[in-house]
């Protein structure tokens, strides 16, 4: 794209802008959730919407996730396009049936005769000592269960384009945004997530990974925070004379296995990074997808994921447990050549 004028936005603002654009052109689009009205969302991604569209279309809800997500399913099947917010993804346990057994499956149960065009947006991730019930990613928990698309941007450009694509999609989409990339200063901010965002509407297609850095020696695959760790690790590896390719999955469902496989075919080495828990997660899925395709590897693939422990509050423990560029570099340096 040709940039007329740099217009750097945070992911939070990019999301709010995308929602506003769609709300202006499609009166079926509305937003529901806790504190998404006057407050503008705890993570800023609905800021300004209440003022522009009013309390009817930007609805604060009771703390009743089962009810309002269930209601979104009903409204979506009746012609509306709800965007609902689950404030922290960690809270999915109080309302997951409405998500995985209704939102995700009703279209199938109806043989395609009912559509559920809704977006469930939800915050993920830790790093700021919010402890074990407010810092999780649970990417795989959502991506494992069929019938919903699951996407997660790593920068504001993708956030806007993927939010617009999600709203326009005829299927339910879970839109995960990572708190530390949100551009809210009080959560710490990953500056690289704040990028130029065109004013107009555009879509970033769901289900397409992006090679965000090209390289020849190793493929680093990540999503949200993992992408930024990967990019930083790639810069460190460059200083070691190693050329790392970084793939931003962007979407967990549909999963763009081809892009990952093509990359590993080229580099022969694979490191998968995830802030979600280690076992039964995204890292295992990516590694399995590559090896079952019979890609020839120069070294055993490695993963840098959150250990299988509840997320500890105290800073020394939490920071130690999180994925990091250092851990990726070290994973590369200790790879078992085969």
């Amino acid at each position, binding site marked *: 794209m040709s940039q007329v004028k740099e217009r750097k936005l945070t992911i939070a603002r990019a999301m709010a802008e995308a929602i506003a654009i769609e709300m202006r052109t499609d009166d079926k689009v509305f937003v529901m959730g806790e504190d998404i009205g006057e407050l503008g969302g705890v993570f800023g991604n609905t800021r300004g919407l209440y003022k522009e569209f009013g309390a009817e279309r930007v609805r604060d809800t009771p703390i009743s996730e089962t009810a309002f997500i269930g209601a979104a399913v009903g409204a979506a099947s009746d012609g509306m396009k709800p965007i609902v917010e689950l404030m922290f993804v960690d809270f999915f346990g109080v309302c997951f049936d409405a998500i995985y057994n209704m939102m995700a499956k*009703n279209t199938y149960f109806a043989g395609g005769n009912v559509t559920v065009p809704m977006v469930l947006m939800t915050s993920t991730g830790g790093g700021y000592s919010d402890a074990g019930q407010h810092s999780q990613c649970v990417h795989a928990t959502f991506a494992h269960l069929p019938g919903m698309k699951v996407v997660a941007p790593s920068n504001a450009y993708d956030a806007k384009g993927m939010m617009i694509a999600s709203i326009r999609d005829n299927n339910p989409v879970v839109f995960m945004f990572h708190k530390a990339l949100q551009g809210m200063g009080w959560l710490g901010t990953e500056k690289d997530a704040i990028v130029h965002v065109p004013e107009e509407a555009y879509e970033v297609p769901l289900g397409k990974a992006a090679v965000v850095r090209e390289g020849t020696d190793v493929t680093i695959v990540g999503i949200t925070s993992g992408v930024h760790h990967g990019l930083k690790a790639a810069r460190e590896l460059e200083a070691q004379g190693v050329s790392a390719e970084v793939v931003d999955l962007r979407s967990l469902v549909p999963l763009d296995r081809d892009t990952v496989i093509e990359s590993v075919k080229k580099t022969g080495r694979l490191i998968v990074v995830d802030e979600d828990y280690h076992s039964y997660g995204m890292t295992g899925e990516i590694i399995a997808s590559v090896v079952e395709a019979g890609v020839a590897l120069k070294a055993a693939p490695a993963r840098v994921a959150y250990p299988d422990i509840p997320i500890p509050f105290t800073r020394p423990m939490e920071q130690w447990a999180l994925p990091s560029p250092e851990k990726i570099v070290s994973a590369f340096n200790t790879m078992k050549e085969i």
Partner: protein
Amino acid sequence: MKPSQEQELWMYKHMLISRFFEETIEKIYMEGKSPAFNMANGPIPGEMHLSNGQEPCAVGVCAHLTAEDIVTHTHRPHHVAIAKGVDLKAMAAEIFGKKTGLSGGRGGHMHIFDPKVNFSCSGIIGQSIGPAAGAALSRVMQKKPGVAVAYLGEGAANQGAFHEGLNLAGVWKLPVVFIIEDNSWGISVSKRASTAVERNSDRAVAYGMPGEFIEGNDPIKIFEVVGKAIQRARDGGGPTLIEIETSRLAGHFMGDGEAYRPAGEKEALQKIDPIPLMQQRLAKEYGFSDADDAAIKAEARAIVDEAIQFARDSEYPAPEEAMEKVFV
């Protein structure tokens, strides 16, 4: 608000269709399942929850609804689907798992979706509620007519979704009516053993909405009470909670031994089977004769037979079609 003669006949007829449908399904369900009862076998595999006895809840409510109104139901949906006007052929075919079924066989008996008449259901207890509230909200926001009716069992009234959904409907004054079919059993657990109140309708005060309890499994009383609630919803007066005393004449699902049921309970319920009672009422009220009854029964049976025949005659979908309609 009394039903007209025409409405009463409509109700009776749909109670009959429902009852004949269930009786037919009951028989066919057992095909291939004896001598050894194995749910996986026969033309209708899987769980089967019959609604025999609960027909008044279906017709007394749906008599007030048109296709544009929304109904959400549960794991025991046939009677209400029929009263709501779900295409019976496509529904029967769905229950048989045929390609001509409502979803091409993907959903089955617990997942009846017919968008033409705005009917849907869920096999998860309590999950009829949120979607109905949301559909009601949708009508308000779109300024389109239509009310939503969410059915649930009395057992479901102890599920969190009940509380959340009713509160949401109450706060937002949504055009939705909640109908509890109180058959006094949640599988083997009695209402008394699971519910801290005598009448779930008393719980309406917790949501700032009117609550009504309807005794006697009586389609006419149901018609009257529900009619007012639906009218109030249509008029912007907000939601209502209604509990209807009804009876589960069969087991929870087919294959249920029902040893937990007190001796004599079922026999007593058979004696107040709402279908003969309705027939007697029609006779008394309108001089409805045995010949009239035979005619309406024949009509109902023909509808059921046609649907079942359609289901039997239809083809199974190709196995690989399983991969379709996940995303659209």
